[in-house]
């Protein structure tokens, strides 16, 4: 049993990074991510962390420096939010296409303009096509565990892809809860030495990323898609190992609450899943057969796990905290597209977009939205699937 500390989500991530013992950290400040790099800088200056810290002049350079360091054999970490993530987006793609393990934390904040520092998932899901393994935590403890596991997954030879961990700014990022920190020696043994597919350190002449013809390039990208298939297996293995060693298991790519006998499933990602679970508890008390399916890994998208849960349900409501303007919430889009590959008889589906730009959504709100969906569905009032953007005003 390790140490228990009251930590914000940001500091929980910093403590996990410390245990992973990275060689190089490069970062640039942005609200609400800044406390992560401040904490790491403090750890380095106090001699608790041996990593070199590159205090770069932009987020583009932050991920660029991590890329360079990773290529040269270093375990690396960076963190960012919102505009910073968009600014480094070029490198988000570059790193995964180079198949180089890197770990990055995203402390979600909506995308501007106007200036707004409150959280939704728009910055995180904006990276969905970039070839990263993408996980999203629900609380500080999970943020800690996902960060530590990210290093293990990223450096698995069956994967060799970068991994990002998301949390909502302020809601998780700045709110403290008790977080269990496992034993350093035990973590070191479990995580092992840095592994990567190639190293450029002058020991032999090696080229990376030169001009490549279409067929060879397509091959490389195809291998990323293949690796994404392996990731699903590796995530489950790591979850199990981690559970045995450190006492916490989450169930892999998704986490389910009251799903076994549920006829209706509410799908969500991130911190508001807690409010959703409260709403489900209340609905269960009233006899509604409803459960929560929480997306822990957004890429690779856990469609097999989702299908296993929903194949016999009557209805699915997907709550998205982001919107693809002119289309729908992104989780819904992926889930509906994925399910269409499994069945030609989709259950009744609804996509509710809410909580955009940091608008607060409470368990009462979830209760109302879910109850209405189930009631209408049961009484035959829903003759088709629907999409709605709920603006909550108080």
């Amino acid at each position, binding site marked *: 049993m390790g140490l228990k500390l009251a930590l914000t989500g940001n500091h929980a991530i910093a403590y996990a990074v410390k245990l992973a013992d990275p*060689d*190089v950290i*490069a970062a640039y400040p942005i609200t609400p991510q800044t406390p992560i790099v401040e904490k790491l800088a403090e750890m380095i200056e106090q001699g608790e962390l*041996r*990593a*070199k810290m*590159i*205090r*770069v*002049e*932009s987020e*583009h*350079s*932050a991920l*660029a*420096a*991590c*890329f*360079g*360091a*990773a*290529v*040269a*054999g*270093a375990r*690396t970490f960076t963190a960012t939010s919102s505009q910073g993530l968009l600014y480094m987006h*070029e*490198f988000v793609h*570059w790193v995964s296409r180079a198949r180089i393990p890197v770990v990055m934390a995203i402390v979600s904040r909506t995308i501007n303009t106007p200036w707004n520092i409150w959280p939704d998932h728009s910055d995180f899901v904006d990276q969905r096509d970039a070839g990263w393994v993408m996980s999203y935590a629900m609380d500080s403890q999970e943020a800690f565990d996902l960060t530590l596991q990210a290093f293990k997954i990223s450096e698995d030879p069956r994967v060799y892809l970068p991994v990002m961990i998301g949390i909502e700014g302020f809601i998780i990022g700045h709110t403290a809860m008790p977080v269990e920190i496992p034993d350093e020696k035990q973590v070191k043994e479990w995580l092992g030495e840095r592994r990567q597919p190639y190293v*450029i*350190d*002058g*020991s*032999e*002449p*090696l*080229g*990376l*990323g*030169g*001009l*490549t*013809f279409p067929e*060879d390039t397509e091959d490389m990208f195809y291998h990323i898609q293949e690796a994404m298939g392996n990731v699903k297996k590796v995530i489950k293995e790591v979850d199990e190992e981690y559970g045995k060693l450190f006492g916490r298991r989450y169930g892999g790519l998704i986490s389910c609450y009251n799903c076994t006998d549920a006829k209706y499933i509410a799908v969500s990602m991130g911190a508001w899943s807690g409010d959703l679970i409260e709403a489900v508890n209340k609905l269960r008390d009233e006899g509604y057969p409803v459960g929560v399916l929480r997306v822990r890994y957004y890429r690779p998208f856990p469609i097999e796990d989702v299908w296993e849960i929903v194949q016999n349900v009557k209805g699915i409501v997907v709550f998205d905290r982001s919107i693809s303007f002119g289309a729908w919430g992104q989780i819904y889009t992926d889930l509906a597209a994925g399910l269409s590959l499994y069945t030609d008889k989709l259950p009744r589906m609804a996509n509710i977009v809410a909580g955009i730009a940091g608008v607060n959504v409470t368990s009462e709100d979830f209760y109302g939205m879910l109850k209405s969906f189930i009631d209408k569905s049961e009484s035959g009032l829903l003759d088709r699937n629907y999409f709605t953007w709920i603006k909550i005003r108080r």
Partner: protein
Amino acid sequence: MSGVETRKLPLPHDARGRVLPGDAACPGCPIPIALKVVSAVFGEKAILVIPACCTSVILGTYPGQAIKASVVHVPFASAAAVASGVSQALRSRGIKDAYVIAWAGDGGTADIGMAALSGAAERNEDIIYIMYDNEAYMNTGIQRSSSTPKGAWTTTTPTGKIENKKDVARILIAHGVPYVATSSIGYPHDLYSKLQRAKNIEGFRFIHVHAPCPPGWRFEPQYTVRVAKLAVETGLWILYEYHNGKLTLSGPSRPYIDPAKRKPVEEYIKLQGRFRAVTEDLINEIKKYVDENWHWIKKMSQ
């Protein structure tokens, strides 16, 4: 002309051994000339970090590579930042015998890469940054960069560039880095000795290499070295080193501190089609620009 110092350091015989035949450079391209000198100094221990530029293409197609050294191809704006990361990783891993070299064109340095360059210089990262300056975006087909000289035609300045060339070496001197030098492919021995010096200095080192481009500057491919030398002989391009807070004029440029010894700038200009629309007034402006640069050199080397 003295040139004594550079003659003491002959190029090794295997200077060509690591820049391999079959590269994709245009006829008369200055880049393989400079790369051969870099290879002669650093050999297989060079880790070249190369952003989008002519060299991205010149080095050939996967799985081949026309240089026997390590190469990391990186996005346009990121050479100095990636090189910083490589360097810090090597330091963290205790590797001391590899040399991290950012190798970028003028666009990737003076324009899109400027913020990353300035950041790495300010942090005094242990890297050598080489800017090979062909004075426009040549890889995309001759568009103006901030390093294009006044009066030069490019496809985005069809009647000639209005502004003066951005002086990147001076910007780096203002950063207070340990070593800044200007050089030219017309004087490989000078470049060689500067790279040797840079090799033995720790911290951020910047070398600005003037690199005349036949298709971009509109001259016949056999004149690359001649144009490069004329830039120095007319006093338009000045070779110097800045080290330990002191500016020293380099051998090839020393005679031209005396304006009487400089060849007329017209000799340089008339060889190049990119200056074909240059007027008398503009030539006078260019002459004034040359004088101002020399004035600065004199002041700095006192």
